């Protein structure tokens, strides 16, 4: 396939995705399961891509994603809860310490609809920036650590962050262990798709720029990269901060999707879940992360629910299809991918390579004997 065709193909796929999301919004009510699932999947896609930027493209094995999402989610909630709802949300903290709401401030200037939207986006942005700032601070000591030490240190940071957000002394801001809620959220699919799409597009652009190439050089060989004039500390920090920024925004969107914010969901298990999505999609493939997010969320939240409920694909076996079977099947699939398909769905290939991959696949299927040679 020529380069022009590849670009064309990519454009068509993206346009189709946008059209599909618009169609969903036109025909399905906001409480429809498809809407819920697509929203969750786009959020996961964004966070998975942000993690891939760090783990897949820069080779920094960080497990702090949940912590940065937590920051983004809380920033979003704290800034957007309408002023008149604060008394009921912060019921144990006398209405909390913050007495303004960003969307309300903006709607005072720009009018109700536009102002609220702008305010929500601004709150998301603040969440992202907060996560980025925290990443910068954490990064100063932690990024000097090598692979697995880095992983465990970032994991630890996420846990510490969680304890802080549940601390009653910070209750007037974080509401302690209690839920934040009643904040505005997008109820349609398209805002999620567009928002996540724009963010992911930025990451793709970054990865294909000179900085992205430098990240990959660090991943492939740190010593050589440094010898070729790439400032390791600066570039690692940059990747860490950028990744955390998007994780923060992802956290804010997650808050929108969930409708309530508590620190509890942002545990290390969330990070593991996202890491496994990245692995399924292929470490080093943005398209893979997005695809895997959708597959994972669609199956776990919707299509494979039958595995837990007794009946699946018309087979009724309550003895086998009981609670937890779905996740058990999932984890087996994940292990199979980790052990035998280490490159995941996409390897390091991207959307434009997809038609070629399919064509090669079909050719191999037709001539299985020669398949091995062709595949090298």
């Amino acid at each position: 396939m020529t380069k022009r065709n590849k670009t064309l193909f990519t454009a068509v796929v993206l346009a189709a995705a946008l059209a599909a999301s618009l169609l969903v919004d036109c025909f399905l009510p906001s409480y429809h399961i498809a809407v819920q699932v697509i929203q969750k999947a786009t959020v996961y896609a964004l966070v998975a891509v942000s993690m891939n930027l760090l783990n897949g493209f820069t080779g920094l094995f960080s497990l702090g994603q949940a912590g940065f999402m937590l920051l983004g989610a809380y920033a979003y909630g704290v800034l957007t809860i309408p002023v008149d709802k604060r008394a009921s949300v912060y019921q144990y903290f006398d209405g909390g310490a913050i007495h303004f709401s960003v969307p309300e401030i903006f709607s005072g200037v720009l009018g109700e609809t536009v102002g609220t939207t702008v305010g929500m986006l601004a709150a998301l942005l603040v969440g992202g920036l907060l996560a980025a700032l925290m990443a910068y601070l954490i990064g100063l000591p932690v990024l000097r650590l090598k692979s697995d030490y880095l992983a465990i240190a970032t994991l630890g940071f996420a846990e510490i962050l969680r304890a802080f957000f549940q601390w009653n002394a910070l209750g007037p801001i974080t509401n302690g262990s209690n839920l934040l809620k009643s904040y505005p959220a997008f109820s349609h699919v398209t805002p999620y798709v567009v928002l996540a799409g724009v963010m992911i597009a930025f990451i793709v652009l970054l990865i294909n720029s000179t900085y992205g190439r430098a990240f990959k050089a660090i991943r492939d060989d740190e010593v050589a990269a440094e010898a070729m004039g790439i400032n390791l500390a600066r570039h690692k920090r940059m990747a860490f901060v950028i990744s955390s920024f998007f994780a923060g925004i992802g956290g804010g969107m997650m808050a929108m999707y969930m409708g309530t914010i508590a620190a509890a969901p942002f545990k290390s298990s969330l990070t593991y879940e996202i890491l496994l999505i990245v692995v399924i999609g292929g470490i080093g493939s943005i398209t893979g992360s997005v695809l895997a997010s959708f597959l994972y969320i669609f199956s776990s939240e919707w299509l494979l629910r039958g595995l837990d409920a007794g009946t699946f694909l018309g087979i009724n076996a309550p003895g086998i299809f009981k609670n937890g079977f779905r996740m058990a099947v999932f984890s087996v699939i994940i292990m199979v991918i980790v052990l035998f398909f280490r490159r995941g769905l996409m390897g390091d290939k991207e959307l434009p390579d997809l038609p070629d991959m399919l064509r090669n696949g079909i050719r191999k299927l037709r001539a299985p004997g020669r398949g091995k040679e062709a595949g090298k």
Partner: protein
Amino acid sequence: MQEILPYLINGVSVGGQYALIAIGYTLVYGILRLINFAHGDVFMVAGLVMVYTTTALPMYAALPLVLIATVALGFVIERVAYKPLRTAPRMSLMISAIGVSYLIQNLAFYITGGVPQPVTVPIPWISENVLLFGQSTKRVTLVTPVLTLLLVVGLVYLINHTRMGMAMRAAAKDFETAQLMGVKINAVISVTFVIGSFLAAVGALLYFTNYPSVGITSGAMPGLKAFVAAVFGGIGSIPGAVVGAFIIGLCEELIKGLGYTTFSDAFTFALLIVVLCVRPTGLFGEKVTDKV
């Protein structure tokens, strides 16, 4: 003194439990340079097996079975999930470990139905209450640190005075050279996992006797804490892991005693990060430099 005494006793007991898990981490890390994320879950499985076997079998049959089952699990995990990745990048290995942890938890979830399994038949004698310096406590509190130290002494002897121990030391020092020198590396690694799982099983017996139930995430927190202990003591070093575990156990309980209960877990991680940044090799770890 009388006031902090109960915290000290409890801290030593908790430290002993962490120590038994921490050794498993430190041994595996010493040889494979892998954080075996699944180790805490092996610990949890040992607890579950204990619950199931002690209800079905008499105690003298049940306890050995727990040890055997746990050791077998550790062995199988290594063969299935880590051995095929021997030449793969370290990140793949770590992902595999996280995957195994996820798998064990989800399988346990499926088997138990996601409900914590009650420990209906606690191990006799050690779960009785005794008085110590005027404080009421369970006998296991005293047994744990003593048994831990005995096992560690045995293990250190094994490593320093047997052929297998020598092979383990060689593999820890230089994996490839040891292989070239005729050390059967796969056997050594298997033995490492067997020892680690055995100690985790002993730890689980002592730990879950103390508690009313075993849940699917019961292993996660002790596992993580024990790992921190191993890093704190200098990962790869057995005395380091033990000392680290006792220090962390004591600190944790003292912090609770001081009233900062909100941060008792967070403190452990803060300690970890400080250690990693100030002295990445821990208390007893060896310094490694990258070759260019």
